[in-house]
């Protein structure tokens, strides 16, 4: 398409820089610029289309493939590597590195259900901001970067359709089986983000965050791994809410009980903050 640059011609007058090499360099940099702007545009499109209620799958796949192509070319060029270095030196933690675009198609199991559980989590050590998202089925959890919650939708959107009708149960099983395998896959495909960390970090960030703290969630995950999604039918019909968890308000209090069995001073502050969090959660669930 564009030539990358031509070798400087030897000339007697060294001061004369060959026009061709200048043009070549200009063409090369304009190609890089164009490519970068195409990448940015594509990522924005992906984000936007995942903000829609039900994105057009064909369009999403085509845009994602385009992004992948650009990434591959930039990797071959070495420009990806340079950008990655620059990014790393800026002090980004490994957990916020760019993940491969395959993550776009992340399975539902890792997005929807763990998010619900971390909301209910009473561990308290993670500072989590609970964001009720009307366009998504579940309540999404965002970490310190508030915009990151957008990212969660990408994989979810492609998988949301998994929840309906005929194949629901079958796929829930499938996904839960694949769950652990996918964690490893994603880690090995880590890549640094490009010059626009905000957009890409937003796009892929959440997935890393979830992977980063398996501890508190895994117990809950096990607890809820066999949640039957059929309860949605009755609950959602009645309340119009999609994120109604199987546990009712009393269940949550019950589950809190073990951690507050001894009425010691130590546990009280814990209890109070948990209850505040609970109130907040209940407000969202009940939709007041």
């Amino acid at each position, binding site marked *: 398409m564009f030539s990358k640059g031509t070798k400087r011609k030897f000339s007697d007058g060294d001061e004369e820089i060959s026009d061709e090499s200048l043009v070549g360099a200009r063409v090369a940099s304009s190609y890089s610029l164009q490519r970068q702007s195409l990448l940015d545009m594509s990522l924005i499109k992906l984000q936007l289309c995942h903000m829609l209620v*039900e994105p057009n*799958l*064909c369009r999403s*796949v085509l845009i994602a493939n*385009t992004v992948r192509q650009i990434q591959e070319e930039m990797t071959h060029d070495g420009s990806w590597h340079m950008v990655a270095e620059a990014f790393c030196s800026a002090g980004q933690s490994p957990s916020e590195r760019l993940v491969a675009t395959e993550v776009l*198609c992340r399975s539902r199991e890792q997005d929807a259900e763990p998010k619900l559980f971390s909301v209910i989590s009473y561990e308290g050590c993670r500072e989590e901001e609970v964001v009720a998202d009307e*366009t998504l089925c579940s309540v999404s959890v965002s970490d310190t970067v508030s915009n990151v919650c957008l990212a969660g939708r990408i994989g979810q959107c492609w998988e949301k*359709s998994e*929840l309906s009708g005929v194949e629901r149960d079958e796929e829930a099983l499938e996904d839960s089986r694949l769950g652990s395998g996918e964690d490893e896959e994603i880690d090995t495909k880590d890549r640094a983000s490009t010059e626009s960390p905000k957009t890409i970090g937003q796009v892929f960030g959440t997935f890393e965050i979830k992977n980063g703290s398996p501890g508190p969630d895994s117990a809950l995950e096990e607890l809820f791994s066999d949640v039957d999604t059929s309860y949605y*039918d009755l609950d959602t019909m009645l309340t119009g809410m999609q994120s109604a968890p199987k546990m009712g308000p009393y269940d949550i209090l019950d589950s809190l009980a073990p951690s507050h069995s001894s009425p010691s001073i130590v546990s009280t502050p814990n209890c109070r903050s948990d209850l505040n969090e609970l109130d907040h959660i209940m407000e969202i669930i009940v939709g007041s």
Partner: protein
Amino acid sequence: LQDETSILDLNNAYLMKYVADIISTVEFNYSGELLATGDKGGRVVIFQREQESKNRLLSRGEYNVYSTFQSHEPEFDYLKSLEIEEKINKIRWLPQQNAAHFLLSANDKTIKLWKISERDKRAEGYNLKDEDGRLRDPFRITTLRVPVLMPMDLMVEASPRRIFANAHTYHINSISVNSDYETYISADDLRINLWHLEITDRSFNIVDIKPANMEELTEVITAAECHPHQCNVFVYSSSKGTIRLCDMRAAALCDRHSKFFEEPEDPSSRSFFSEIISSISDVKFSHSGRYMMTRDYLSVKVWDLNMENRPVETYQVHEYLRSKLCSLYENDCIFDKFECCWNGSDSAIMTGSYNNFFRMFDRNTRRDITLEASRENSKPRAMLKPRKVCTGGKRKKDEISVDSLDFNKKILHTAWHPKENVIAVAATNNLYIFQDKIN
């Protein structure tokens, strides 16, 4: 033998202005007597051709509204908190087997079988009730009479006979009636299901390209069609520009194709948009069943079913857009899904473009023509003037430059009468019907 030029010289323009929602599908029935349109609001409007009037020897019958009904309503999926659009994606007629007409209409998730029947007689002279419908006092009935059928004003009724629901997780893009007239297929982005017209509570999944790991998804199904004569054969196209022909006799699940059609890419024209523009938006078998036609963003290709490695004919629809792909990507026009169609004898093909232009190609003479579907340029019974897009340099009179094209006026849906030179062109919310004056 048909006159060489008559196929492309449409001398008669009947403008039917159809003010409604955006038209999303157009389809003639098997005889061409009826023309169905579906729109974004879930309505179906059926036009019927009038009988040829003896007074107007030169003109053919006009198409007038025959029936209008609401096929699909918007639905709400509570689980996903999503509204399911009522837009009709496809209509396919069933061959006529009795006085009534049947068609299948599909939105994103549900397919419905509609029966359209006429009522032009009414029974009069019932024994047990009056003409008003009031019950007669049985003691007053002294004689028995046989009710007589009396003519009444024609009433066309549409009633849903079958509803095929809950079988598609993704958006339905195609439906196609099988040549056995008992079954049909429906395709969404990742799966194709086979239905029996009588059975609504189950369907067979015959193609499933959903990867076990959704992260690996790179290709989707874009269109599917049953072979016109061989009831075991169907094809489906993909977003990567490939077509797979499957034989249902080979296996219950047709994930493995019998034939794989793909044209090798021209390395010199490779760009970041190559894949997007190679995505096939429509696939149609010829009436003969020997060829199939595919539409990608810039061209229409005719394939011989016996040759998988390249198409036998390629027609450029709007090659002048190749240099504008970046802008078309930006404004999303690059994702527009154009349809294509054959004429009754498979000698010509038609497809739409932008600026309300549509293109027709004569396969025998290799002539092509660009016409415009617009009210200003189509007076009733006036000859259509060919249009030309100026690609560079000096713009001639009557030519239009690429930059002046209106990309909001796109013709995605066209249909050709199965027997005659009559075409239906949907331009946003207007339906144009053009026909040939020459007999």
